[in-house]
């Protein structure tokens, strides 16, 4: 190894250092603390303190008591991600291939909602979906909703809110992937007897898979953990796991349960992501 190479190696490590320190301090340490808390004795409290007694039973309790919000969160997240994928793919495709000189403007428009607060945007959906709002009135007029039917405080509202809030996270990686596709490859597929629809599934779609995978992950993971949409747009009878964790931490002060729930959620997401990435077969593309 030459001197310059060795120096380059050192510089490499030096560049890694800030991020490693940051993650070590604010991810590894809290993660360890969370893991430890999840195994504390449930009978403890803020006043009396907690005892570490390797209470793996916490996990059993948590799964027994809160499997419904857990499944509901995963379901909401999955549905919102699927809708985001369909809407986002069409949008990203149009921006990448059809927008021409409007490309940059359209990308800015995709990000534009971020300039307003997440809370404000979600609250405004309360107005959009309100019981005497335009959408509900129209749906009632065409009898898609009963006369006393409503959208607010239903899963539909929660999924709509999630879809709206996380769509940009889907569109941007999709756009980056689709925009990179050499248009001549699509011409070549047509030249080789592929109908445009077949050409899409044989060429465009596989080449955009890296964007599909990162887009779905960036959407699904935060959507599953999100509880703002459920709190503002959903019903209190249909809680999501995020709000259960929040209330266990803040209202019930049951730290071990809240921590165990967090661990379960994290483990579930990690497993699902691993299975998903393997199934998508994009390890070498990523």
């Amino acid at each position: 190894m030459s001197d310059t190479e060795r120096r380059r190696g050192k510089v490499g490590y030096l560049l890694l250092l800030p991020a490693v320190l940051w993650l070590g301090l604010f991810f590894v340490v809290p993660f360890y603390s969370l893991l430890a808390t999840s195994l504390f004795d449930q009978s403890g409290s803020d006043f009396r303190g907690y005892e570490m007694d390797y209470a793996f039973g916490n996990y059993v309790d948590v799964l027994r008591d809160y499997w419904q919000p857990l499944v509901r969160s995963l379901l909401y997240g999955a549905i919102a991600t699927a809708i985001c994928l369909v809407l986002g793919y069409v949008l990203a495709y149009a921006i990448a291939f059809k927008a021409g000189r409007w490309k940059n403007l359209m990308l800015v428009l995709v990000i534009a909602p971020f300039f307003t607060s997440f809370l404000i945007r979600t609250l405004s959906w309360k107005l959009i979906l309100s019981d005497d709002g335009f959408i509900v009135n129209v749906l009632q007029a065409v009898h898609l909703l009963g006369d006393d039917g409503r959208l607010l405080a239903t899963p539909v509202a929660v999924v709509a809110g999630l879809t709206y809030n996380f769509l940009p996270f889907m569109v941007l990686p999709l756009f980056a992937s689709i925009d990179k596709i050499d248009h001549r490859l699509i011409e070549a597929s047509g030249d080789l007897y592929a109908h445009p629809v077949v050409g899409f599934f044989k060429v465009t779609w596989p080449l955009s898979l890296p964007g599909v995978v990162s887009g779905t992950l960036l959407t699904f993971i935060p959507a599953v953990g999100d509880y703002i949409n459920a709190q503002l747009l959903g019903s209190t009878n249909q809680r999501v796991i995020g709000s259960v964790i929040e209330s266990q931490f803040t209202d019930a002060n049951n730290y071990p349960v809240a921590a165990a729930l967090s661990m379960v959620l994290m483990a579930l997401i990690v497993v699902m992501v691993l299975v998903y990435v393997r199934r998508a077969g994009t390890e070498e593309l990523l």
Partner: protein
Amino acid sequence: MSLLAEAPDQVADDTPYDGLRLRSVTKAFASFTAVDGLDLDVPRGSFFALLGPSGCGKTTTLRMVAGLETPTSGSITLAGQDITYAKPYRRPVNTVFQSYALFPHLDIFENVAFGLRRRRSADVKTQVHEMLELVELTSQARKKPAQLSGGQQQRVALARALINKPEVLLLDEPLGALDLKLRRSMQIEIKRIQTEVGLTFVHVTHDQEEAMTMADTVAVMNKGLIEQMGAPAELYENPRSTFVANFLGQSNLIEGAVLSRSADVTTVDMQGISVSVPTGRTHTDDAAGWVGIRPEKVLIGEEGEALDAPGNTIPGGVVSDVSFVGVSTQYLVRMPWGQELQVFEQNTGRRRRFAPGERVELSWRPEYAFLLDRSQDAGAGAVAGVLA
């Protein structure tokens, strides 16, 4: 167009033609007309080259045949079928793209099999293996395109198009990305494959040497039109326009005035010297013209030396530059009227090399000279030809 009138296979437009035929094809874009009323007949089974500088409309013509562009007007027929507006995936035409456009996510086998699979062809495996054998890539079948060298990728692109046995195979500057040595060997390779499979090849290129090496018919395109079409030797030996004379090889063009015309010879006063040009090589009816002669057809000798060139002898030259390029010596000779003429002399070793400043006499056989239209630019095609 006059060149079609002289084509031996000229037939009425409604008779089915088994090759590729373009009739008054025009392609206008918003700001310019790329192809302007083009007529073209490509005989079945031929290796046809469309040669021209960049921007001459040759690639647009190719893309219209492939169905990737729609003509503004005119018609394209292939083996008697009108394909002017047929979708690209519905026409029996395949393309070898300029940068190959291989599918990066598919291995070599699947790239080559792509067209067969789309048409649900039987026996994909056998056919692909046969094709990979033809292009000598059998051992690379399971690699991805990015793992192959440029020359190998080129062969995959060729195999992927050829396997479909198209009525016409289009090659869009297929060798542009390869280095010179590889390009030469691929030229021979592609020519061999074409002879072996017997399909019609239409090859677009700006490289005149490539066109002449590979094609049996070359059409020289300029500004959306065909300047001249014919066998490479015919185009080279008897160019009809200054553009062709300069773009294909190099030419000396000397201003002259026509003295007389007879059945087989035109006599021209070229800067005070009377020279003759065969009538079949006289391409202007005007009183003035450009006398053209290829540098390698010009003989260089000492003043008063009787060289084997009855007819056209031009005395009074002074050698102004000598470059030795191995197979030949290239002279620039300043003539009494101020023009510098190029002379290439084969290095046979039997004649001595002249030095700059020496007085020489040039001569050429009348049958090698040609006469072009004086109104054409004597420099047309020259710069593009040199840059290419």
